[in-house]
């Protein structure tokens, strides 16, 4: 720790993303008008390079900047996934943005800054650093949601998201301040040590944990803190929804891991109770309310609520395997969500967002390949084998039963059946209903088409040979306790 500054090399991916965000901003200012694609290509290159840098770092561990940032197996794996997902978002959205006049440098810069925020959430080792990461991610997202200024829905969604998001940040910050007051430190390792003497009966600790969990639940979108989610998902331009539904889920899980496991594992008995309540409500609201939706984006928003409930099941287990399975769930969910929203992006065109469920009528006849991909995505979301979604649920339930929460596992599987219904309904519309006459999908972007194909087929292939991805994610959480 003494020569910690010299270990700045542990933070190379973060530094790289920061530098490149500034470079893209400058490049766009000077040549953007003539050569917009330059910024796009440059952003794509930055993300690829960031992935390579992160990959090169894996296996190492240590601290950078006097213990502010931390590199461990989890950091590299989680950062790798958020970089990959951001790259997917970028590739999916090119045509969508072009068609709506949103193909501007700011989008790329904001994406890179949001990614940086997510990476800092993953690697932060100090409460204030984590908070800065969270705000960087959140502010970039607020701007992205409201980016389509002439769209009333988008601005409304942006405002709602901003107000509720700020409230969540405030709750979290308040919880952090209580933790600081209790332990006298912002450093997570020192907090962990100091909490040994505090004990789980301490009222202030309970209060601190309640606020932190509430903030995390808000950001994740777990019920009953989910009110912002359907509006924000529906109102935001679909590529932004794509981002919101994938990258932050992994980043916020990392935030949970850093604060409540690395720092506050001593308070597990407190936060486990809170997460049980979140699970019970999220699974119910997410899966039942989704049935009533007619808008696909809204339905997927409620599906997010339900899925965060499943993710929280792993957190409730609280064991090594439980946390690893929750992380695995976050990664798998992010991959499924990108595919689902990616499909909507792909099918949309100017003036037609393909976001109503009924817009998919007869997809099986008019676009069989897209319908096949939809089939894979929906069954994966429903957790039906042989798709990767099944193994995500399997991992979570396995950890839960290992921790002797059989009743919660039974509740979870029953809710999975309820959830299956609304995914099937989407398939029913797409595959069984006859096509409508006047429907013309966009579906002419070869880039998005190929990314979507790779993304969705991966859900199936990974479902047949899930071993490597599972081991990769589980290995990341080795020794977290």
């Amino acid at each position: 720790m003494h020569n910690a500054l010299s270990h700045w090399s542990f933070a190379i991916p973060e530094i790289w993303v920061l530098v490149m965000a500034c470079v893209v901003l400058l490049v766009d200012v000077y040549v953007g008008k003539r050569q917009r694609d330059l910024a796009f290509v440059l952003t794509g290159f930055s993300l690829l390079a960031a992935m390579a840098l992160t990959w090169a770092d894996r296996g190492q561990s240590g601290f950078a900047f006097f213990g502010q940032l931390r590199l461990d197996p989890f950091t590299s794996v989680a950062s790798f996934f958020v970089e990959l997902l951001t790259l997917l978002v970028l590739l999916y959205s090119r045509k969508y943005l072009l068609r709506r006049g949103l193909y501007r440098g700011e989008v790329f810069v904001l994406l890179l800054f949001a990614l940086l925020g997510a990476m800092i959430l993953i690697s932060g080792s100090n409460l204030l650093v984590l908070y800065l990461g969270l705000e960087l991610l959140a502010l970039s997202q607020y701007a992205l949601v409201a980016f389509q200024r002439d769209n009333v829905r988008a601005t409304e969604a942006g405002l709602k998201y901003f107000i509720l998001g700020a409230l969540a940040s405030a709750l979290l910050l308040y919880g952090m301040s209580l933790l600081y007051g209790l332990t006298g430190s912002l450093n997570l390792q020192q907090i962990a040590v100091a909490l040994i003497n505090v004990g789980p009966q301490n009222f202030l600790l309970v209060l601190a944990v309640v606020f932190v969990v509430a903030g995390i639940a808000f950001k994740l979108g777990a019920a009953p803190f989910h009110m912002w989610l359907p509006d924000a998902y529906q109102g935001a331009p679909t590529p932004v929804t794509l981002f919101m539904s994938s990258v932050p889920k992994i980043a916020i899980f990392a935030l949970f891991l850093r604060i409540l496991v690395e720092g506050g594992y001593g308070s597990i008995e407190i936060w486990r109770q809170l997460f049980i309540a979140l699970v019970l409500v999220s699974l119910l609201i997410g899966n039942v309310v989704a049935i009533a939706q007619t808008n696909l984006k809204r339905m997927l928003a409620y599906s997010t609520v339900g899925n965060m409930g499943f993710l929280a099941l792993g957190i409730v287990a609280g064991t090594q395997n439980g946390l690893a399975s929750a992380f695995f769930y976050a990664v798998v969910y992010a991959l499924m969500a990108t595919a689902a929203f990616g499909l909507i992006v792909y099918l949309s065109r100017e003036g037609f967002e393909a976001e109503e469920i009924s817009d998919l009528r007869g997809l099986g006849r008019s676009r069989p390949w897209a319908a096949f991909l939809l089939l894979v995505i929906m069954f994966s979301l429903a957790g039906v084998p042989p798709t990767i979604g099944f193994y995500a649920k399997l991992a979570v339930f396995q950890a839960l039963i290992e921790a002797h929460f059989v009743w919660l596992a039974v509740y979870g599987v029953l809710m999975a059946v309820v959830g299956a219904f609304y995914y099937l309904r989407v398939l029913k519309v797409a595959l069984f209903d006859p096509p409508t006459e006047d429907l013309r999908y966009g579906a002419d972007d070869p880039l998005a088409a190929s990314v979507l194909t790779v993304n969705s087929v991966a859900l199936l292939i990974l479902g047949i040979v899930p071993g490597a991805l599972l081991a990769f994610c589980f290995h990341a959480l080795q020794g977290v306790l």
Partner: protein
Amino acid sequence: MYSFGILSAAIWVPIVGGFLVLALGDRAGGNLARWASLLVSVATFAITLPLLTGFDTQTASMQFVERIPWIPSFHIEYFLGIDGISLWFILLTSFLTVLVVISSWRNVSSRLSQYLAAFLIMDGLMIGVFCALDAILFYVFWEAMLIPMFLIIGVWGGPRRVYATIKFFLYTFLGSVLMLVAFLYLYFHCGDSFSLLAFQRTPLGTSAQTWIFLAFLIAFAVKIPMWPVHTWLPDAHVEAPTAGSVILAAVMLKMGAYGFLRLSLPITPDASHQLAWLMITLSLIAIVYIALIAVVQKDMKKLIAYSSIAHMGYVTLGFFVFTQTAVEGAIIQMLSHGFVSAAMFLCVGVLYDRMHTREIEAYGGVANVMPIFASLMMLFAMGNVGLPGTSGFVGEFMVVLGTYQAYPWPAIIAATGLITGAAYTLWLFKRVLFGGIVHAQVAALNDLNGREILVLGSLAGLVLLLGVWPAPFLDVVHVSVAHLLQQVSVSKIPS
């Protein structure tokens, strides 16, 4: 005890073949897809034949075993193997898929390649269920199979297909998720292994056994289906296309029963004994009450669907009286029902292709214009009734006999089901085939073509073969059943 990967080939050849057929599309008016599917299904059947010739009937241990790690972090293995109980069902599955491909040759109007591909993929998955010896692998096949069936009913089904297919999917999905919880519980209980053989060995306390038995029961009872969770079946059968009904009745229903033999009985023997009264009661309700419902049906497919439920009642009855005769009889009954119900649904399909209605009232006097059809259907009706000389007799007789050895009264009640069975089957037969020709449409019916004679004729041969000479079938299952009953008789409650 050797392994050439026959089982893997039997699973993966049809699945890969199915995707190839999908890729071929409906070129050349679908002829390419037709011949490719036929080739794949015949190849699969050919692959499964060495299982029979190379099978050692003297041992109850697993044969043709393949075992490699699949998901090492969770100790999930790719673990396949068969014994005398599973062998016949693998052959039944691959054989019926050939028939299904042939019978769908001309009567599917849209998206033929996708239709055939769904059946081929399902073929592989169903074979997978019958030879998986790892719990998660079993579950994956068990669930994955729902996807093609969901599509077959939903895309190619009748007017109420959407309702029927979603009901089908949700019922079976609900049933099986609890089985998954039971698997996970057992995994930790027997020291981090998902092997079904390890599950069978591990001791279990009384309450754990009861809960696990009930979890399995829900999964299998829905699939078989047993009263009172049978309501999805008539809907699914009526709406499904002919080939879908055939596979549903002949193979999928057997999976629930197979689950009892492979999982419930050996893993929870004490609970099986304790709850045998429940199982016997439910079986008798199916035999008596469901058969009565079958009598009053106006739709031919619905009638056969209810008759299937009643016949499966004999199967579950046979399992839970724990005598060698009854269990073997139940297995023969499963096979017999596989042939007979497939044939009955194909017969209805033959009529439906020509008349586009399944209402019994729309027919009458069909025997006058379709003599070959009438004689074949006569045979299958007799098989359904359980007339001596047909396969139905062997199974039902053995079950009733075996039950009588243990419990006389249930056996007597079950025997009344034979009479009801005769009533609804013969009445159906009479109303559809005999009497005067009711109207011009019936008069214009053509008799069976060569393709239909091939399909129905081969099933007729099997019904007779199993009826008059069941010994070769029984030889295969004998040792495995004896081993199973020995497992069930030993208490697993730790002392």
